């Protein structure tokens, strides 16, 4: 089943409390998938430095890892440490940091990287993730959340959403893709890296590949309608943008709502009902095969 939620702030007031709002949304969707939960927040840009969200095996010495990264890149610091995963800030571009990590800490998985994205995911309920990773106290410009009912791959943190395969790009998916194995092989030939055998990660990788080739987010999603086979409702976050897309048959539920202060997408209305002003929001069911996008560039300062 799975539950997905996305929240895009249009006012400073919502930005300040985005973690709390997105957390409330995700809790409402807990019944749609108790296997794992994840949240991606786009916040606190550190450009030209990078942030990397890292997942490590039990007992990973994050302090030692950060010290090593600091020696290699001048400065590195732990933004937040949740034991099984951390967000690490490194004064370098994310690509160089990834190469250094793969050479010195091959046991560590990079679950997200970029100037803004911070990603938390864990096996278990949304409430456990939200409290354990202090998501509710975080500000952010926009964010995505997911509660998973596993169908296509094992219940493990690495197989949990959101999936991020490109810098400041991530995706949450409700549905199931049929041609992910073939597409993964093709994308690997194009140099896209995948960490799991999960179908949703392939969708994220596909979008990253299209964006890398010069498409904008809307164009990448239009192309996805032709190239992805299966059923899906996607919510996608980029550094400045937020998008929603459903497959042409619209198997999976989705509700969109917008006020002067926010844009929200969720699998069910009850996740939107918890937002301030929800009762008076403009609300609609996104049409099948239609790309909806919002961009921070379009929002007045």
């Amino acid at each position, binding site marked *: 089943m799975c539950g997905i939620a996305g929240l895009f702030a249009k006012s400073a007031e919502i930005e300040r409390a985005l973690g709390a709002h997105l957390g409330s949304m995700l809790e409402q969707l807990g019944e749609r998938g108790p296997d794992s939960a994840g949240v991606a927040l786009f916040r606190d840009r550190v450009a030209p430095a990078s942030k990397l969200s890292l997942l490590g095996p039990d007992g990973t010495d994050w302090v030692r890892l950060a010290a090593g990264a600091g020696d290699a890149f001048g400065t590195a610091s732990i933004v937040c440490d949740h034991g099984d995963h951390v967000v690490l800030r490194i004064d370098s571009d994310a690509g160089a940091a990834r190469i250094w990590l793969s050479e010195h800490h091959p046991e560590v998985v990079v679950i997200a990287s970029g100037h803004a994205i911070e990603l938390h995911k864990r096996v278990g309920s949304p409430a456990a993730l939200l409290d354990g990773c202090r998501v509710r106290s975080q500000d952010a410009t926009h964010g995505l959340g997911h509660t998973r009912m596993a169908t296509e791959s094992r219940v493990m943190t690495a197989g949990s959403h959101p999936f991020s395969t490109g810098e400041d790009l991530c995706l949450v998916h409700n549905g199931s893709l049929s041609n992910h194995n073939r597409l993964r092989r093709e994308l690997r030939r194009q140099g896209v890296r995948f960490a799991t055998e999960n179908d949703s990660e392939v969708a994220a990788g596909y979008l990253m590949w299209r964006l890398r080739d010069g498409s904008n987010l809307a164009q990448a999603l239009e192309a996805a309608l032709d190239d992805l086979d299966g059923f899906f409702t996607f919510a996608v976050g980029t550094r400045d943008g937020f998008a929603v897309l459903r497959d042409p048959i619209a198997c999976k539920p989705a509700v969109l709502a917008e006020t002067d202060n926010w844009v929200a997408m969720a699998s*069910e209305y009850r996740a939107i009902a918890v937002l301030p002003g929800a009762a008076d929001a403009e609300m609609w069911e996104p049409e099948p095969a239609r790309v909806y996008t919002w961009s921070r560039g379009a929002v007045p300062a």
Partner: protein
Amino acid sequence: MSAVQATVCELDLRALGLRAVNYALHQGRAGTAFEVLNPDGVHALAAGLTSELAVDVRGHAGYYCAGMNQHATVRVRGNAGVGVGENMMSGRIEVHGSVGQSAAASAHGGMLVVGGDAAARCGISLKGANIVVRGSVGHSSAFMAQTGRLVVLGDAGAGLGDSIYEARLYVRGSVADRGADCIEKPMRDEHVRELTELLTAAGITDAAATEFRRFGSARTLYHWQPSRGTI
């Protein structure tokens, strides 16, 4: 109106919870009027009612609102999610806003009136109910509809009436495309009369039956015809 009918029983869903609210509705005697406050999009609200109640939902409802309804009149002053009025047998459901997919799916009787749009598969497998949608309906509406009427004041999405049996579909706006075995049929006097009655029953006064086109079954899928070639 008796004094009893004038009394409205208020149920605050946020305070009472869904089970208590549905229980109270199920216990309501015929003629009782209820107001449900703070519905917050919960699922299965006012489902399975069997008495002539008047239920006024003050906000948005989640999935399967008023499903399996018999006799009751349920009014939603907001939107309703997937499957509103699914398998309704009788009574009336009015949604002031828009409704999610599969509205009045498989409904046998009664009437669903939607003030806004209905998403995909509105009236799927319709079995006798009447549906009036002021806005537009999504794709695959009235899929395999067997009997009943679907009235759309706006537009219909792709695949209208695919594999339809005997339901009648009236559309005022455009039809993206018709599904298999669904054809346009002439609006004869009896259809204008029927549609006028449906519009009146739905409280619609700004649309005339003559502005609509009628769609129904070509009946070519009823029997396998060897002459139509190989499978």
